[in-house]
């Protein structure tokens, strides 16, 4: 079974959503092989309805016909408007009324047929093949076969597009997120369907918004694992745009995806629990909306002696390390930023400490431990550290640097 679309719009993209074998037959005409789709859609009428529905969704205006061979489908789509399904064996009868020009014969052949008074498919189909072979040669025979709807041939498939991207221009500048979300949903659904038909997924979404001011607003979303979940992607995109809204009304929306192979991994029966990646990404996006960017992730210690040196990395992206030895260690609870303190010195040692929420006499102490580093950079540091037990019952780490005294945290 073959289908043909004849009209305007993204015909090839639409055809590729249904079949990998698509032929760009001519300007405004594509034919594609829909064999086997009856198992998905049922009767050819149901398949035709599904294609027509999708065409309406992606704003393709085209005639659609389904037939047992590609040429019959092409002729029907070019000759009849609307949706038609040609029953098997009735091709000749169905196409009989169509003008011969649809078969696009050579100029010489068309003149000959015109002189004979043959103007429609049924006139040519009624002629004896032997007589046509004698008078018109092989071209005439091929033309007769096509007029009878009996021409069998293979489609010449088009190259699959390497890029998966789509764009849309709203009728008026969009300045609210809600209508923009509708446009994004349409683009995302189309791209997800196109990826799915090729057995692909995506791990990166690139959004480019053309603004009324002439500027562009670009956002890139990376997914932790390849996915085709357009709903989750839309939610992620909405959360990202809520956090980074376009500065002006949007007049053009372009969305691109990076096609990758989907992750094929089976979870172990006894594997420890772990968050589902796409769901976790959504959760983290929501948390970032609450606590702010750069405040959610995995801490990674930096290779330096500078106190409190770490950076935040994406959760799950950090390199897996060997299990470090587990041992009970005295933990430091840091004050961020360190609390500025007033320290009374007695006999060259801290004697009384006052800071925000902290006030007490020093009962016991150890120090000072002098540390310094990065003196070869623009941000050198040096300090004298003390571990102290205060009369308020807690153990603190304080330090003195050129800017003054600070409480770094308490041991807990």
């Amino acid at each position, binding site marked *: 079974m073959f289908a043909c679309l004849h009209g305007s719009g993204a015909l090839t993209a639409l055809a590729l959503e249904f079949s990998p074998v698509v032929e760009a037959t001519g300007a405004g005409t594509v034919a594609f092989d829909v064999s086997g789709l009856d198992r998905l859609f049922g009767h050819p009428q149901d398949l035709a309805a599904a294609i027509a529905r999708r065409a309406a969704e992606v704003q393709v205006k085209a005639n659609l016909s389904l037939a047992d061979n590609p040429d019959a489908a092409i002729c029907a789509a070019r000759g009849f408007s609307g949706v038609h399904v040609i029953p098997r064996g009735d091709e000749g009868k169905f196409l009989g009324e169509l003008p011969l020009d649809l078969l696009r014969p050579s100029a010489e052949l068309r003149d000959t047929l015109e002189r004979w008074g043959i103007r429609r498919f049924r006139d040519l189909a009624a002629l004896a093949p032997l007589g046509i072979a004698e008078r018109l040669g092989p071209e005439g025979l091929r033309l007769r076969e096509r007029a009878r709807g009996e021409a069998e041939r293979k489609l010449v498939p088009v190259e699959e597009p390497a890029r998966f991207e789509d764009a849309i221009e709203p009728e008026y500048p969009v300045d609210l997120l809600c209508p923009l979300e509708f446009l994004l949903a349409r683009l995302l659904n189309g791209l997800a369907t196109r990826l799915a038909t090729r057995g692909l997924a995506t791990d990166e979404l690139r959004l480019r918004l053309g603004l009324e001011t002439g500027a562009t607003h670009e956002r890139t979303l990376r997914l932790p694992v390849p996915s085709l979940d357009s709903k989750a992607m839309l939610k992620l995109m909405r959360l990202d745009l809520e956090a980074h809204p376009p500065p002006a009304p949007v007049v053009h929306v372009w969305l691109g995806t990076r096609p990758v192979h989907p992750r094929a991994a089976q979870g172990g029966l006894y*594997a*420890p*629990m*772990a*968050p*589902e990646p796409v*769901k*976790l990404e*959504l*959760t*983290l996006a*929501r*948390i970032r909306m*609450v*606590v*702010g960017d750069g*405040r*959610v*992730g*995995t*801490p*990674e*210690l930096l290779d330096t002696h500078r106190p*409190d040196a*770490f950076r*935040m990395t994406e*959760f799950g992206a*950090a*390199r*897996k*390390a060997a*299990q*470090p*030895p*587990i*041992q*009970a*260690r*005295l*933990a*430091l*609870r*840091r*004050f*961020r930023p360190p609390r500025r303190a007033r320290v009374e010195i007695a006999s060259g*040692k801290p004697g009384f400490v006052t800071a925000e929420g902290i006030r007490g006499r020093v009962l*016991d*102490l*150890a*120090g*000072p431990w002098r540390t310094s580093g990065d003196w070869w950079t623009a941000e050198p540091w040096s300090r004298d550290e003390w*571990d102290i*037990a205060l009369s308020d*019952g*807690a*153990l603190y780490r304080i330090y003195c640097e050129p800017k003054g005294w600070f409480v770094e*945290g*308490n*041991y*807990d």
Partner: protein
Amino acid sequence: MGAAALREQFDSFLGGPLDWRARPLPDTVPSGIAEILLPRGGLVEIVGPASSGRTSLLLSILAAAGARQEACALVDAEDAFDPGSAAAAGVRLERLLWVRCGHNAEHALKAADLLIQGGGFGLAILDLGDTPPATARRISLTSWFRLRRAVEHTPAVLVTVARQSLASACASLVLECGRECAAWSGAAPPSRLLRGMRARATSTHGSRTCSPVFTVAAL
């Protein structure tokens, strides 16, 4: 046949008397400190004043969860977590999701709720250890019930750290920490050193009681 005979026959068939009223014990996970077991699907509170060993116990729990290959989440209301201390205690930082709430308990509660509802973490921690008690007490009991319900019937453990118990009846286990002594060595500065601390964690909730003493060494 009388009821007593029937019961005897039934018990002999089962291999011993059966306490029908006894509830099955919850599945537990080790905390890294002997005697302290944490109930899966439960809310565990670690309470105590500053320098009572709460955070050291917390790091021990995190390290044990990391050794079980579980993903852990730490919602840090006051931004007090020290990755250096955690790494020294054996915490697998690459398995830890750290949410820094910048001194906002309300944000911390929201973040914890989102994480727990999302599921997938073996250990979720809400650290309100430095949050002023007046602020922490404003968290309604409904919020605690919601968090408790979210972890119930899941293999996750929810641990909260605070100065005093906040979840009250919602908590499956409350561990009250207290410092016994700080260990110093050396006579006087500069040869004097803070060597560590001895702390006691006392269970003050539930039918099972324990009060193990644990020692933590300084870095």
